[in-house]
């Protein structure tokens, strides 16, 4: 591909905020991708990455709130953000309908994230030009 070619990206985040640098590296990458005219088809949270979709993330006031930063970014650019349902339920990230289904005491999925299956990721593998992963640096 020539440097001018515009690409469609899917970003998969598998590292949790505050346990890894993954959400912040991914956000800087996402901003640069849009600034260079590329498109982001979707952001898919998988494994520990689903913690990014918690509406209850409350870091100290002198630290960046990466969950909030991602919510703002997705909202302002109208990009779909999905949290994998199996990863999310295991780790206690729940939307209203899953709360009702499992009769849980609360829900905590931050807007604009939605819960979805791995089919969304499969669609990315099949249709996005590039799927880039942001893992826990371990």
């Amino acid at each position, binding site marked *: 591909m020539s440097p001018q070619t515009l690409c469609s990206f899917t970003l998969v985040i598998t590292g949790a905020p505050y346990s890894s640098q993954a959400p912040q590296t991914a956000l800087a990458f996402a901003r640069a991708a849009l600034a260079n005219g590329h498109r982001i088809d979707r952001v898919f949270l998988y*494994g520990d990455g689903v913690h990014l979709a918690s509406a209850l993330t409350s870091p100290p006031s002198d630290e960046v709130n990466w969950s909030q930063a991602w919510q703002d970014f997705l909202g302002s650019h109208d990009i779909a953000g999905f949290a994998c349902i199996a990863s999310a339920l295991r780790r206690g990230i729940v939307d209203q309908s899953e709360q009702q289904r499992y009769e849980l005491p609360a829900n905590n999925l931050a807007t604009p994230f939605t819960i979805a299956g791995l089919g969304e*990721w499969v669609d990315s593998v099949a249709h996005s030009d590039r*799927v880039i*992963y942001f*893992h826990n640096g*371990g």
Partner: protein
Amino acid sequence: METLVIISHAPYCDWTGRESLDMAFSLAAFDQPVTLLFTGEGVNWLRKAQQADAVQQKSVEKNLSAAPIFGVSALMADHKACERYGLNKENMMPGVTVTALSADLIERYAHVVNLS
């Protein structure tokens, strides 16, 4: 355009291997070609007769042996890792091709996933 899913995490200590398998099976379920490659400590998933219930987890041995039925093209394992962890024909589950993680191997796949 086939996907290579690499499993490099040891079994039972975290969910990375399991969640990698879920990715491979999802691709297969949607008729997307996929191969599984076990590397490093990940080859320990392939040992026969694991009793995962001893640590109150589910064994993936049945899932792995059913992988071809679900449409996973191949199960492969890195030979150096097998050597290191003492895995051979006798103690490894059947149906696994021993190969080498290399640029030549990677070259066959359009997409490579390594959860880590």
